[in-house]
């Protein structure tokens, strides 16, 4: 099977609008979480959310290419342009080579709501406008970016709840290993707006630590009380080793393992057995022993039961040795985007030899006490890391990446 590497990455998030800003936030433990006044007005239980500014694409894209793009598509465009630049893939190269796109996205609430409001009020579907349908579909990011970037390879969206973009990277890995594609643009996008989060807020899954927004997301801490929704977009360029070498592209990491499983259990309550199998499958796929993992980026969303069960799964497979952290302590839960963004956070840490702090990890619970967690940054060389992403319906995805080594 072909070797698979990462040759580009780009990010637009609540902790930075590009790789440098994000690396700085990770290194210094800066939170991207705050309060959304609209959620207070709308009667949300929790107004806590990742805070993000929408980019202005008006000078970057002509109208026809812009009007089908929803909020999360704007983030995805900016992240993808950063990734393509780093990977040295310009328009000329894209026109001459078959490049694919597999992106994670699992909602697009605002355009759907706006369209229905117009139809109900005006009783005339033409008044919805031409961009709405392209903004409304789950595949909005892949349909827009494939047109903007003139892509001619594989082209579809993966919707696997909060594991969407992790699965997208895993699927790309398999296609490239099989020799079916050489380069695939992968990632995940997540809208950040009250309308898309109301039904989730209603499940009482969000933190209520409203007085201290930056302390609300506290994965693995004994006093955690729920997740903080967040978003943005993250893109990685997944490429065959041969293609990367041939065109002299930078190799940021090698992708060696993808594990997946389904819990076959409850729709929203995770278990221990499913994630354990996902971890074991990823290790087997990568032909890597548990003691070879230098760092684990946990899924850890800061919900009481989710973190509890992941801690047990991690302990079952790895024991207490490898350092574990939860970048969601800074970003909040980036959901459809999280699998891809956490690969980028981890690569940044691998490149700069540190493990970011798990913010607000002050007191462990019975199970997190058995893991190697720290509320402070650790300076550490990382050669191999593992990243977990789990989602509603019990979908689990685990990726393993290594520092690039010629051998």
């Amino acid at each position, binding site marked *: 099977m072909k070797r698979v590497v990462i040759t580009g990455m780009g990010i637009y998030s609540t902790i930075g609008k590009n790789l440098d800003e994000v690396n700085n936030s990770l290194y210094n433990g800066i939170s991207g979480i705050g309060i959304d006044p609209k959620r207070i007005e709308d009667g949300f239980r929790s107004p806590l959310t990742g805070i993000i500014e929408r980019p202005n694409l008006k000078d970057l894209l*002509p*109208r*026809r290419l812009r*009007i089908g793009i929803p909020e999360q598509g704007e983030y995805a465009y900016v992240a993808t342009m950063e990734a393509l630049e780093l990977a040295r893939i310009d328009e000329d190269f894209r026109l001459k080579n078959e490049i694919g796109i597999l992106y994670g996205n699992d909602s697009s609430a605002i355009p759907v709501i706006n369209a229905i409001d117009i139809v109900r009020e*005006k009783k005339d579907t*033409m*008044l*919805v*406008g*031409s961009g709405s349908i392209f903004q409304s579909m789950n595949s909005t990011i892949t349909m827009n970016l494939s047109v903007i970037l003139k892509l001619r390879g594989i082209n579809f969206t993966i919707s696997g709840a909060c594991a969407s973009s992790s699965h997208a990277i895993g699927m790309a890995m398999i296609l490239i290993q099989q020799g079916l594609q050489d380069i695939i643009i992968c990632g995940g996008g997540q809208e950040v707006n009250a309308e898309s989060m109301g039904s989730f807020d209603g499940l009482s899954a969000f933190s209520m630590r409203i007085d201290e927004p930056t302390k609300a997301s506290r994965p693995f801490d004994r006093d955690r009380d729920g997740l903080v929704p967040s978003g943005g977009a993250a893109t990685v360029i997944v490429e065959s080793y041969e293609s990367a070498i041939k065109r002299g592209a930078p190799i940021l990491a090698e992708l060696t393992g993808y594990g997946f499983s389904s819990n076959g259990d409850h729709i929203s309550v995770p278990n221990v057995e499913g994630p354990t199998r996902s971890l074991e499958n990823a290790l087997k796929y990568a032909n890597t022993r548990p003691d070879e993992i230098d760092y684990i980026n946990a899924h850890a969303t800061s919900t009481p039961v989710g973190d509890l069960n992941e801690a047990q799964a991690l302990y079952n497979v790895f024991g207490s040795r490898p350092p574990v952290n939860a970048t969601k302590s800074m970003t909040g839960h980036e959901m459809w985007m999280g699998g891809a963004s956490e690969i980028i956070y981890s690569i940044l840490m691998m490149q700069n030899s540190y493990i970011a702090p798990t913010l607000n990890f002050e007191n462990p619970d019975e199970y997190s006490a058995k893991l190697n967690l720290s509320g402070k940054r650790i300076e550490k060389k990382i050669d191999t890391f593992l990243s977990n992403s789990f989602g509603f319906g019990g979908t689990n995805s685990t990726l393993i990446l290594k520092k690039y080594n010629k051998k």
Partner: protein
Amino acid sequence: MTREEIIEKVNGFLIDEFEIEETRISPDANFKDDLELESLDFVDIVVIIERDFGFKVKSEELVHIRQLSDLYNYIEEQVKNKN
């Protein structure tokens, strides 16, 4: 509303919202060849007409609109009928 006011409004939204250069706008400008608008854009023109002129367009009425003066004429006629 006078014809001049209609022309001003139509040209205004073509420049501001469709981002068409002012120099390309003239009564005999063809939507497809000169202004490079496509069928999807006509959906948005319908939305703007409803917003700016207060009447609903039926899609079959747009079939004969080829150049900008056709649109001015169509809107002028509809505005008159409304009054």
